[in-house]
């Protein structure tokens, strides 16, 4: 399982890290698509985990991901509409979507403790990858001041989510899951 987890994290990092391959960084329209997709795939995983997870802590965490990432997307969508920016799909947002779909497909085949572990392991890798992309690519590349401010504002939530996921991950491994 450990190999799968690190592979999963590597794939995520590759998807988000691909943004560093942009010649002049992603445009605001591309950043908008990346942010909205990144939040949406975590909301989708959260919805599945809320109904399928075994541990109450994992179900609670899943609900928090749905609530918090939905709020981020609501703000992001309102902002881009106000700025008349149309989110532009790009290789990074597309591979994020693909990675999210693959994660859902894998989670659907699991149940009980194995589901909880796979979901939480992916959440740790996902939040690490998003934080890395925020710091290295998305925040530095954002041109519009309000878009940049929104990215800076949501960053602490991703840090808190990562800490929460790691704490649950360590609890699951102690309980032998």
């Amino acid at each position, binding site marked *: 399982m450990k190999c799968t987890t690190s592979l999963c994290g590597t794939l995520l990092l590759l998807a988000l890290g691909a943004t560093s391959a942009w010649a002049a960084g992603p445009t605001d329209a591309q950043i908008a698509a990346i942010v909205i997709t990144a939040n949406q795939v975590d909301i989708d995983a959260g919805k599945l985990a809320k109904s399928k997870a075994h541990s109450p802590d994992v179900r609670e965490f899943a609900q928090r991901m749905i609530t*918090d990432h939905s709020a981020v997307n609501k703000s992001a969508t309102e902002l881009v509409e106000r700025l008349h920016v149309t989110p532009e799909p790009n290789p990074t947002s597309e591979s994020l979507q693909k990675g999210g779909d693959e994660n859902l497909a894998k989670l659907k085949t699991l149940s009980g403790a194995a589901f909880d572990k796979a979901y939480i392991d992916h959440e740790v890798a996902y939040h690490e990858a998003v934080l890395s992309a925020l710091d290295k690519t998305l925040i530095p590349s954002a041109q519009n001041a309000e878009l940049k401010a929104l990215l800076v504002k949501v960053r602490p939530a991703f840090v*808190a989510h990562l800490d929460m996921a790691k704490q649950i991950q360590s609890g699951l491994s102690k309980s032998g899951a």
Partner: protein
Amino acid sequence: MTRPRLLCLSLAALLVSSDITAADAPRAAEGAVHTVVIENMRYNPPELSVHRGERIVWVNKDLFPHTVTAAAHAFDSGSIAAGASWTYVAGKTGEYAYGCTFHPTMKGILKVQ
């Protein structure tokens, strides 16, 4: 024009003074309002000292809901929506560690003297 205005002012003064004299002892201790801003997944200031009877207002400036929940539920705001606030009047003296039940990484301390 001057007379009605004067009368109005006197009435206002009377209302204010009657409000003060009518105030009972615990209410007299009220007055100070402290604000704790919830932003960037933090309580700011993280530690606050108040006197009994004073009000504390937690203002949620984050994009998502938070709670202000003391250990053993000495006080508990329940969910405070984004942009909303919650007011608590400090009742009993003591030191209360509190946090957000939604985000366990968030912690604060309220000292009531």
